[in-house]
Structures are given as C-alpha cells and as structure tokens.
C-alpha cells in the first residue's frame, strides 16, 4: 500500500476488494443451493413425498434472491477489470479474456436460461424437464466455478504463456487452464461452497427445531446437513492441507505470511506452529507470539525438522501485508475446526438418538450457520492478500496494473456509489432472505411467481392468511401432468 494517500491505486484496490467480497458470497451460496435443489427435486420425483416438493419450493425462492444478487454484482466484476485495471486487462487480456469468455459461454447462458424455467416453469414443462432444468443450473454453477478459478489460479501460478512486448500471450492453453494451483483451488472452493450452504441449511433447521416450528422438515434437513458435513468437512480439511502444500511450493512468500514465519530456524530444530501473534511488518518479527515447537514442520512439510522459506528471504517490497493474511488464515482454520467438532458431536448424538433434543447442538448449528461464509471470505483474503504485491504472481505488480488515466476523484465517487448501492441492495436482499427463512417451508408451498396480479398467496412474503388458496393451487399443481 502507498500510505494514506487516496490514489487511484489505493481506491481501486479498496473498491475491488469491496465489490468482490460482496459478490463472492452469493455465487458460493448458490453453487451449493443449486445442488441441494437438484437433490430435493430428485427425491420428490422418486418418492412423491410432498415434503420434498415443499422444501424445493421453499429453497428455490431463497435461491432466486441469492442468484439475482450474484448476477447483478457479477456484472460489475466483468467490467471492473477494464475500468480500474486497464493495464492488467491490456497485458493479460489475451489469457484472462478467453477464460472468462468460456465462463459466459458454458455457464452464464446455461444458468440464466434454465433459471427462468426452474423458477416459473413448474407447470409449463413436464416434471422431468423441470428436473433437467434444475440440474443444468447446478451444472452451470460448476462450469462457472471451473473457469473463474482457472483464471484466478493462473494469476497465482502463471504458466503456459510467453511475453511479447510486455503483453502476455498464450503458448499452451492446456497449461494455462490446468496451471499448478488450479486443481487444489478448485477442489477447495467447490467444497467450501457446498459446506457454506450445508451449514446454512443445518442452521436454519436447528433454529426451527429449537423453536418447535416446521419440525418435520427441520429434522429431515438437519439429518441431511449432518450427514453431508460428515463427508465434506473432513474432505475439505484434506483438500486444504494439499492446497497449503501447493502454496508452499509455488508461492512460498504467501505461505510464510500465513505462518508468520519471518526468519530461518536453527538447523535441526524444525519450525514451530505460531498459534497467536501480532505480526510486526516493520520489525520483521511477531509480537506476543505463542507457538508450538516443531508442529509447523509436521503440518507444512510432513516431517519432524523440515523448514520452509521465511519472509526475510525476499526483500521487504516483495512481501504481502503479513497481519491480515496471518489472521484471516487463523479465522478460516478456527471455523473449520469448530465445524468439524460440531459435525462429529452431531453424528455421535444422532447415533445415540438425541440429536434433536440437544439444546447445545441445536444452538451450535444455529450459531455456525454463517460460519461457511466467514471462513470462505477469510480464505479468499488469504489467497488475494497473500499474493501481493503482485496481481500476476512474480510478473505484474498490482501497482503497475491499475488504469493509468483514471482520476482519484472518479474512483472515489465510484467507491462511494458502490458502497451506498450495495448497502441498500444487500441490506434489502438479506432482509428478504431472513423474512423467507423466518416464515419457513409451508405444507403445499406454492411455486414462485414472477409476481403477478391478485393472487398474493403465491408471493412468498405476502402469504399471511390465505393458505387455503395456496392449498387449492397446490391441488391443481398435483393433478397437472
């Protein structure tokens, strides 16, 4: 960072961090939700148990709002590279542009077109066709994740390019797409998205159970959440460990920042694992450090006395800001551990038959319902702050990537505008989501409507007293072919 001067660079960085932080929450949530909806509809078609259908209709409304917010904040992202990061766009557009284009071509159109059918086509197409639409939307979210993470990973671990007159040009698309950090990041991110959604579902169910409302659906969803978490959380810890080793190999400075590892240890003593510290960038050391001897070696090198490259191995202007990376990482891992413990305890309680009676566990699920989001954002900060001062690792500095001809005042204006707009949009969005969740899944849940007309019962939030009307509509829905 360049001090406290409000330069276009600093403002652009704040703006990018701000808009992407808001944006990333919604795609992450909808990746998981789309698959959850595909699962629910599959169960409904298989069993014809109306509760599955009601759950689908409940969650699809939450999906619609979240997806809408993901779309509108995503459009900002696709233009932001040009408005604020013109040099990055010009120099690396030949590589990043095609990856993003493939995202649009394989994912965005697929999601957008079938979303309409998924939301409003319940009675317009056959049940199988509707299920196919849901599955294609889910598939679209995965395609999207694939390409955007490939692009992001390429910026972290670039390969398969040549540089001609300062411009990055593709030499091997295979090597660009499947760059070294991509498979690990993709696995880590997809699991993170699934787990985020899983803990929302579990948290919402636990909240219903605690209050004694929607008990049937609550129990069903909580069991599914526990079962899914039991598989996904351990897998995520494994994926995270592998990703960490990959970072150590390709971005050693980032790893050193994560560990708060400033200097080489004496030979043979191994590396400690720093649990708590206040990293001091200027003095190149940790203040108030609490560390466990040798554990760092075990975790990072899977050996008793292995070491990794310390921060001081590179000049000070090649190091990222250590404290945010160090702390964001600990928040992520801390939440991961909490999620694992809760999952294990819930499994045990389920096996012993008192999962739904345990106030502590239900409260735990409720409290951890936003844990996935926070962990995901923290992880994202580790990735993005940890690669600084580079935007394309080792090749293009962030400070050289910013648009040369934008005025600080213009960027300040845009930053304030985005902040205000997002406060309104996301404030309202989250409010409507919470309202939907508070109402919960009702029996004979009507399908979502684009809004129309008098039959307010069909509008999720105006349901009030006309459930009988909803019931009637449901009867016709059931009898439809």
């Amino acid at each position, binding site marked *: 960072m360049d001090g406290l001067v409000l330069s276009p660079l600093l403002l652009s960085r704040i703006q990018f961090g701000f808009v992407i932080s808001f944006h990333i929450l919604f795609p992450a949530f909808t990746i998981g939700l789309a698959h959850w909806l595909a699962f629910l509809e599959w169960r409904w078609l298989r069993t014809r148990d109306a509760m599955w259908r009601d759950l689908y209709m409940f969650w699809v409304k939450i999906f619609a*709002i979240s997806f809408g917010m993901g*779309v*509108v*904040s995503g459009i*900002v992202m696709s*233009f932001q590279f*040009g*408005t*604020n990061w*013109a040099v990055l766009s*010009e*120099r*690396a*557009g*030949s*590589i*990043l*542009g095609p990856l*993003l*284009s*493939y995202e*649009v*071509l*394989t994912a*965005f*159109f*697929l999601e957008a*077109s*079938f*979303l*309409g*059918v998924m939301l*409003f*086509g319940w*009675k317009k197409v056959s049940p199988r066709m509707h299920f196919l639409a849901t599955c294609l939307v889910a598939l679209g979210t995965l395609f999207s994740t694939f390409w955007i993470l490939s692009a992001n990973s390429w910026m972290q671990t670039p390969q398969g390019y040549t540089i001609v007159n300062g411009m990055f*040009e*593709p030499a091997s698309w295979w090597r660009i797409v499947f760059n070294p950090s991509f498979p690990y990041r993709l696995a880590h991110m997809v699991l993170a998205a699934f787990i985020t959604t899983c803990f929302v579902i579990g948290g919402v169910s636990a909240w219903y159970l605690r209050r004694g409302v929607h008990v049937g659906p609550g129990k069903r969803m909580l069991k599914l959440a526990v079962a899914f978490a039991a598989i996904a959380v351990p897998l995520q810890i494994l994926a995270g460990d592998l990703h960490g080793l990959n970072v150590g190999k390709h971005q050693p400075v980032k790893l050193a920042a994560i560990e708060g590892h400033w200097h080489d240890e004496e030979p043979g003593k191994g590396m400690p694992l720093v649990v708590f510290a206040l990293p001091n960038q200027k003095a190149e050391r940790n203040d108030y450090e609490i560390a466990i001897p040798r554990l760092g070696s075990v975790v990072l090198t899977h050996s008793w006395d292995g070491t990794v490259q310390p921060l001081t191995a590179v000049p000070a202007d090649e190091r990222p800001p250590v404290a945010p990376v160090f702390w964001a990482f600990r928040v992520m891992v801390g939440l991961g551990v909490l999620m694992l413990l809760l999952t294990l305890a819930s499994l045990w309680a389920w096996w012993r038959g008192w999962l739904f009676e345990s106030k502590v566990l239900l409260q735990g699920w409720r409290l951890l319902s936003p844990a996935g989001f926070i962990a995901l954002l923290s992880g994202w900060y580790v990735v993005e702050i940890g690669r600084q001062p580079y935007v394309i690792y080792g090749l293009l500095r962030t400070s050289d990537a910013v648009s040369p*001809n*934008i*005025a600080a005042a*213009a*960027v300040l*204006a845009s930053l304030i505008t985005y902040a205000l*707009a997002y406060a309104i949009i996301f404030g*309202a*969005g989250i409010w*409507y989501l919470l*309202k*939907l969740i508070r109402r919960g899944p009702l029996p004979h849940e009507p*399908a979502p*409507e*684009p*809004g*129309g*007309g*008098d*039959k307010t019962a*069909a509008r999720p*939030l105006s349901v009030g007293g006309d459930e009988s009307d909803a019931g009637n509509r449901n009867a016709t*829905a059931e009898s439809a072919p």
Partner: protein
Amino acid sequence: MSLDIVLPVIWFGVIGFGVLMYVLLDGFVLGLGILAPFAEDEHQLDHMMNTAAPIWDGNETWLVLGGAGLLAAFPKAYALILSALYLPVLLMLIALIFRGVAFEFRFKATRAKRFWGAAFALGSIFAAFAQGVILGALVEGMPLQGGKYLGGAFGWFSPFSMLTGIAVVFGYALLGSCWLILKTEGATQKTARTLTRPLVLVVVAFMGLVSAWLPFLDSRIMARWFEGGNFWWLSPVPLLVLVNAFALWRAAMREGRDTAPFVLTLCFFVLGFAGLVLGIWPNIVPPALSIWEAASPPSSQGFVLVGLVVLLPAILGYTYWSYSVFKGKVATDSGYH
C-alpha cells in the same frame, strides 16, 4: 489471408452480434422499465414485469458476453474504452443492479413495493441513457496519444453523446411498448398501443438527427457515405428505415396483428445498428485504433472461436426453447400459474 488478418474481422462480427443481441433483448426489458411510469397502477406494472420475469436474466447475459468477448479478442480496446468511459460505465452498472434486483425484490416487498418499482423505472432509464452515451462517445471517437486516452474523466461528455443517450432511452421504450403489444392483452396492451405511435415519431426524429450529425463528426464517416459512389448503394439503408417506420406506424394500432410491431421494431434497431457500425469499421476505437491493432494474438481469438462455434448454436437453441416455454399472452391476474 493469414489468421491475424481474418480473425479480428470475425471477432468484430461476433462482438457486433453479441452487442446487437443485447440491445434487442435487454432493450425491450429496459423498455418496460422506461415505460413503467406510464403504468396505471401497481397491478399493471406487475403485468408488464411478468412478461419479462423468466427471461430478463438470459437477456442481460449478452452484455457480459460482450464484455468478456471484448477482453478476449480486443484487450486494448476493452482497457481503453472502459477506463476512458469510467463514469458512464459506472452509471450503467449501478442502474443495472437496481433494475435487476427490482425483479426479485419488488414481488417480495410489501411496504417497499413502490420503492422497488421506482428502482426498476429509474434503473432502466439510467442504464439505457448510459448505454446511449457510451455508444455515442465511441462513435464520436476517442482521441489517443501513444495508446493513452486524452479526454480526461469527462471526455465522453458532448452534445452528440447526450443526444445518443436520450435516443437510446426512447428507442428502448419503443421496443418495450411493442413487446407489450405482443405479450399482453386488455388494458396493458391498450396502454402500449397508445404509446407506440408517438414513440415511433420520436425515434425516427432521433435517428434522423443522429444520421444527419454523424457525417459531420468525422470526415472518415463522411467519406464512407458520400465518396466513391458509396452513397448509391448505401442509400437503401435510410430508405428502408423510412419504409420500416411507416409500416410500424400502421401496425401499431391494428387490432389482431400483435407480432408485427415488435418484429418491425427489431428491424428498426438492426438497421440503425448497421448504420452506426458502418461508421466505426474498421476501427474498434475510432478514430485511430483499428481492429487489427487492438486484437489479441490468433491463439487467443482462435481458442475462443472454437468454443463459440460449438456453443453459440446451443445457446441460441436453448434460449429459443426457454422463450417458447413462456410463449403466448401473459395473463393479467395470475402470472404464470
């Protein structure tokens, strides 16, 4: 001809096609928002928005394709245009955000329903205006020196870009009203029919103004139209516009012919778009950055083109299918159910 000559030409066409698709498809959705103030009550606005609720998202995706495609194929142009037009692009994005979430939020809101109705209207109006300004500024040209834009933060601000900004607002409104003639019946359709004729007049007037102004912006455009006998084989374009306008004028009020106005308006836009592109070609950023200078290497343009050849037909196919799922008139009272 070698790839680095041919590919940029193809990509100019692809991006032109993407932008045109966006203008046509999101144009009528934005048009609904622009016409929202003319809705008699909240019910009628419900009705208007219902006609687009299942498809607006796909329509907007063409804009994202335009953006990503431009980055992939002409990174220099992408960097230049977006950073030079920083403020109009910001206005467009913010407006599109409010317009987009209004679809979701307005129907979930009880007390704030009017607020989101206003967000839908203002978002649509400003998005359309900003797009017109961007278009105008681009056609007018961006002075460069050593690859850097000379215009400053308000370089896009000119009488011409203001004119195109307002012209696009009215143009989209016309698309919107003709879409409503196609998709609705009763009171909403009647409102749309009444609005269509005045809109045709206004849009023809704006097209005339812009066309008359264009040749004076730049000797290059003047030359394209009036030198070497070009005028003779280009003259059908303005003529077609007039014939088209006349047909549209007649179709607007004719009961029972509900498809014709929309189709004619689409033709209207295609002609206008062609006229503007003709002024830009072979530049991607007039007056001096040609498509070949701005192009990414053939390995980039070729890589995406392969995917495009395979995926674009599929996209057009399922887009058509998703429209056909929601075909026919949209009822006033019950939405889609």
